[in-house]
């Protein structure tokens, strides 16, 4: 592959993987079964990225394993209603169709594991998107480093990735025990737990003790938050997650006051909310059902986005949840989210149930942020007031 006998795109991709192997001292490349590619939004790629992708596609690049995409900069169908300008939309569509030419599935979501890109325990994979990487390693037990956009794409076009880091069982060993004494109820609480743990441990690998049977949605929230605020690509939950690890001796505790402190740091002062966004990471069908139940018979007065994978939205349509949500004035934002859409300057105060969305809302879009339960968010969408 490296000698160009399989074409220029494969040769360049192999060169990238070999160089990364050199940088990270990998002994070899390993075959993979799944890829998640980041760097999809035109907002991030720009014209230079688009040009590179178009060149690869023209040279015959084809994905070798199941490959899905991270969220794009807009809803690929409903972009006008979400206030995206036409120039941006044209470029974004070009990017998506270029990926499709390479045989990549245009499911644009940060939760590929909910829409058919679902590896098994022990599978070597090459995923970008920090929350999905942490979910794949920790909850599924698959093995992936935190890939960047180009390295994930190179992995897709060759079916290989450098063998180091999270691909080695030894490097996945827990490094600190986290005794959780705080009471965890909502999805946001798990985000606050990720914040508190990440701030205390950085990218050390935690072994959580004291957490009882979390839901998929709570785990998704914890994965996103701990990857954002700490940086670890994996954690372990005693009696819950599938990876085996020796239990570390270093121990920290997370108390109720740590969660309170996390909430204080993620909440700004303003109580007048003008943008409500749920689905960071993308909403599950069950979350959409709950939102529909809370919105039934109500009218929202503020811009309210429910970010999800297009496939999940279609299921919500079949179940009748989507109708209730749209009747309230709330909008689905499929294929995209509040973190990658070009939203700077459009809103001032974001309300969400996601710790990760607070980080990117502030950092990327200069929003003030409010974080709380699903019910608090829905109420804020109806009244414009955060309570």
């Amino acid at each position: 592959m490296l000698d160009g006998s399989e074409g220029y795109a494969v040769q360049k991709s192999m060169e990238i993987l070999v160089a990364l192997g050199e940088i990270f001292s990998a002994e070899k490349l390993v075959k993979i079964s799944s890829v998640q590619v980041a760097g999809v939004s035109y907002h991030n790629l720009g014209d230079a990225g688009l040009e590179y992708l178009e060149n690869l596609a023209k040279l015959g690049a084809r994905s070798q394993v199941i490959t899905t995409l991270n969220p794009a900069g807009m809803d690929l169908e409903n972009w006008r209603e979400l206030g995206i300008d036409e120039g941006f939309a044209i470029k974004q569509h070009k990017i998506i169709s270029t990926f499709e030419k390479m045989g990549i599935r245009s499911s644009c979501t940060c939760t590929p594991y909910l829409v058919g890109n679902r590896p098994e325990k022990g599978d070597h994979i090459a995923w970008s998107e920090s929350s999905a990487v942490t979910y794949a390693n920790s909850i599924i037990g698959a093995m992936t480093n935190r890939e960047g956009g180009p390295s994930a794409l190179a992995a897709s076009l060759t079916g290989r990735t450098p063998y180091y880091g999270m691909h080695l069982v030894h490097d996945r060993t827990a490094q600190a025990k986290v005794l959780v004494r705080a009471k965890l109820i909502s999805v946001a609480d798990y985000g606050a737990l990720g914040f508190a743990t990440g701030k205390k441990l950085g990218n050390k690998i935690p072994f959580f003790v004291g957490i009882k049977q979390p839901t998929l949605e709570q785990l998704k929230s914890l994965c996103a938050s701990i990857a954002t605020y700490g940086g670890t690509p994996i954690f372990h939950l005693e009696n819950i997650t599938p990876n085996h690890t020796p239990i570390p001796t270093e121990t920290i505790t997370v108390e109720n006051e740590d969660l309170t402190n996390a909430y204080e740091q993620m909440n700004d002062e303003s109580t007048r909310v003008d943008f409500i966004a749920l689905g960071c990471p993308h909403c599950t069908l069950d979350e959409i059902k709950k939102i529909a139940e809370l919105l039934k018979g109500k009218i929202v007065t503020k811009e309210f986005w429910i970010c999800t994978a297009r496939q999940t939205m279609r299921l919500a349509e079949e179940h009748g949840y989507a109708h209730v949500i749209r009747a309230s004035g709330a909008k689905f934002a499929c294929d995209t989210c509040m973190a990658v859409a070009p939203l700077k300057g459009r809103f001032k105060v974001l309300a969400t149930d996601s710790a990760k969305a607070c980080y990117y809302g502030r950092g990327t879009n200069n929003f003030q942020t409010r974080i709380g339960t699903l019910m608090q968010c829905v109420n804020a969408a109806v009244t414009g007031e955060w309570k």
Partner: protein
Amino acid sequence: MEIIRGRKISSGTAEGSVLISHDPLSFFGGVNPETGIVIEKGHEIEGVSIKDKVLVFPHGKGSTVGSYALYRMKKDGVSPKAIVNVECEPIVAVGAIISNIPAIHRLEQNPLDFLRNGMKVRVDADHATLEVLD
């Protein structure tokens, strides 16, 4: 003539004059993609063009979009001829490879110590060597 061994990042061979930065460099946001002039405020080589130079710096930094920015500069003819890093990282590595810019790193001697601005050198990434020509 002195030949120093390193390790290959991106293949190819190029000759040119050395431009040294002791500061890490970001090709996205840190360099004007139309002119190749470094624009990062307070950067050691702010205001200097990297065009056609053998660019020597510790390592890359900043957004991963920097890989694509380097690709664009190469297409527009304002990229460096070769890259020598102390310790390369993925953004520069990917950028150099997709742009066909020769790049090496981990030299036997620290290139920031023994190279000087304006020296003529030859980077042969395929043999992972740097040759001082004058």
